[in-house]
């Protein structure tokens, strides 16, 4: 009996995400389900534009949680990702409290005595009020839990990865002056990577590793259906088949799901009902982002369009 429930809940994940307009494959749904169950982050890899970031948004929307996003880039450090002391505020407070300080220290005769009294008040300036929480710390402080999206982790430096390890495995951070801060509710963590560089083994070990590739034809049709509701069934089938053919070519940047959706919108705007040679030629720049790719595809258009419309007759 225990065996039946999980499958049902994986389906629940699938339908939950679908309600937010994210059509997930079985593997993605399993990953999301497991991430919840064993409280592990998901490391999502795959080509650009297959919906890695979108997945995090969909999860947040589905579970009604706040999404906190940390965009990684080279040179990102602790002060920008984790926390920072509000130096200006500390400085300002010392200025304002100057008189008060005089009173506190008033009784002290010697410098030593003054220092001893000051020690009792010293920690005031390194308390929570003076900490500026950055995305990672914010995520831990959400009372309801949240979805923490660490986007394009491969763009950050190797040192930053090590900084993440504590958060990823135990959902806690250590601030020297304050001690260890644990998460109020464990956040759902999604890391995305475009495989620009190899991530460290320590980081990978802490995550579920999910690879999202280009979807299968049926799945992609469903994605288009959910994202661009106005499109006719004939056109949808044809354009997805066309894109799958384009992906078989040796291109610099293959069209991914986001391009498919864009193209579908464009075709709907142009009020197309069927894929035509001229129309494809005119709108190819939506699909392909490099001049050389467009040139490589142009001679193939006629064959692909013919194939796409033929496919519609049979399938």
């Amino acid at each position, binding site marked *: 009996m*225990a*065996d*039946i429930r*999980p*499958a049902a809940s*994986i389906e629940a994940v699938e339908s939950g995400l679908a309600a937010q307009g994210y059509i997930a494959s*079985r*593997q993605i749904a*399993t*990953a999301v*389900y*497991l991430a919840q*169950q*064993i409280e*592990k982050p998901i490391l999502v*890899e795959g080509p650009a534009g297959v919906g890695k970031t979108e997945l995090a948004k969909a999860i947040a929307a589905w579970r009604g949680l706040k999404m906190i996003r940390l965009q990684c880039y080279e040179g990102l450090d602790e002060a920008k990702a984790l926390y920072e002391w509000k*130096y*200006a505020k500390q*400085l300002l407070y010392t200025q304002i409290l100057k008189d008060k300080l005089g009173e506190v220290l008033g009784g002290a005769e010697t410098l030593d005595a003054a220092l001893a009294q000051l020690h009792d008040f010293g920690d005031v300036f390194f308390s929570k009020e003076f900490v500026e929480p950055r995305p990672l710390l914010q995520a831990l402080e959400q009372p309801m839990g949240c979805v923490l999206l660490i986007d394009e982790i491969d763009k950050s*430096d*190797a*040192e930053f990865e090590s900084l993440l390890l504590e958060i990823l495995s135990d959902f806690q951070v250590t601030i020297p002056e304050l001690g260890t801060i644990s998460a109020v509710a464990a956040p759902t963590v999604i890391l995305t990577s475009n495989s620009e*560089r*190899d991530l460290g*083994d320590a980081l*990978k*070990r802490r995550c*579920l*590793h*999910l*690879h999202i590739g280009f979807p299968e034809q049926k799945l992609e049709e469903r994605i288009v259906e959910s994202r661009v509701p106005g499109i006719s069934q004939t056109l949808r089938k044809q354009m997805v088949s066309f894109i799958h053919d384009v992906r078989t070519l040796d291109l610099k940047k293959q069209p991914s799901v986001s391009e498919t959706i864009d193209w579908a919108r464009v075709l709907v705007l142009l009020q197309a009902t069927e894929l035509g040679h001229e129309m494809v030629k005119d709108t190819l720049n939506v699909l392909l982002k490099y001049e050389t790719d467009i040139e490589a595809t142009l001679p193939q258009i006629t064959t692909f369009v013919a194939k796409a419309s033929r496919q519609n007759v049979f399938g």
Partner: protein
Amino acid sequence: MRENLHRFFRAARGAGVRLSPAESIDAMRAVAKVGFAERGILRDTLLLTLAKTQDEKKALGECFDLFFDLPEPSQSASGSSSDDESDAGQPHAPESAEGEGQPTEGLGPLAQMLLAQDRNEIAAAMARAAGAASLSDIRYFTQRGIFSGRVLDQMGIQRLRDDLDALAASNPAVAERLAAALEGLRDAVRDTVSQALLLYGREETESLRNEILRNAPLSRIEPRQVEQMRRLIRQIARRLRERYSKPRKRQRRGHLDVRRTIRRNAAWGGVPFLTAWKRRRRDRPKIVALCDVSGSVARVSDFFLLLIHSLHEVVSDVRSFAFSGHLMEVSSILESNTPEEAMAEIMSKVGFGSSDYGGSLADFEKQWMSSITPQTTVIVLGDARSNNLDPRADILRRIAERSKRLVWLNPEGRMAWGFGDSEMPRYQTFCTVVRQCSTAQQLERAVSDIVATYQ
């Protein structure tokens, strides 16, 4: 089932997926959540928790399919053989049916099982026997015979043989059926053992083969080994990348970067809350490689070029030149083609002539001398056998003066240097390092040392 998972982890390690105990614990926890009911979900779960790269996912997926298919091939093998047998035995069946009741009485369990043709029973017995014979310890293909024997022993083949002997006298028809069934069983066991070898023995076999390959002279490996060698070279490249592509910046403690400190603290009126320290940047290696592609050196050059050009992350700039009679730049050919195509193209343009070191060095000086900077390591790969032509060692001297280091890699053994038409002693005087380089292992050490000088 827990036992099965453990065996699967071992099989996965055999397939080259690195699994730490922590990962297996995670996988266990995950599997406990999803259960074993649905195969697809179980597969996805294991793939999610265990594999960490796309390659590993593929290897693990194949391993999964192989592992959880294990009982089926053996079943079908025994099934098909017993089908054949039953087809052939069909006409005899009615007449022997009456007499069958008695002879099976005195037979051993294995014989009864085989005669009853209960496939599930046979498969289960085989799985039990495989467990008892610790089939998962199989490592090398030479052990196949031993393990097949052990499994059959465990299943009770001895008793079966006795039964067979007894039956041959008393009931030849049943004996014939039994003998045929035994043949089928042998096949099935052999299949099971082969599969186990595929699952558990891959790692050992591979590492043994790689070990042999690493120490084999590159110039004399057989054509069928070339593909394996390429794979090995790629592995070496990955290892070097992992070792040397780590942070390029190192903090120099104690040297304050005044300019950056002031700028960073501008918001607090120049009160230095945050300090910035000077960093020292490490250079990435710049390499100019001159490779002899004539005759026996060609293959070593091939692998050397493959290795150097797969070090993108570690080496910032590589320019490769190939020569035999004359010299040309081959960097772009190597970058834009697959290794096989590139080598074929290079060979068709330069290759297999009689080598002329002097002429090639002169070609290099004329056109590309300016590519050498004081940060460049120049690597020459060749046997320095110049067919008694002018060696032009003076050009090599000028190259050595312009560059950071001049490394000469010679596939020949030290003993051969200087004999016959070898100009090695004369070139040697201008080189920073000279080393023999004829096996993959020596190649790895040589390249590793070159990269390490930049760290």
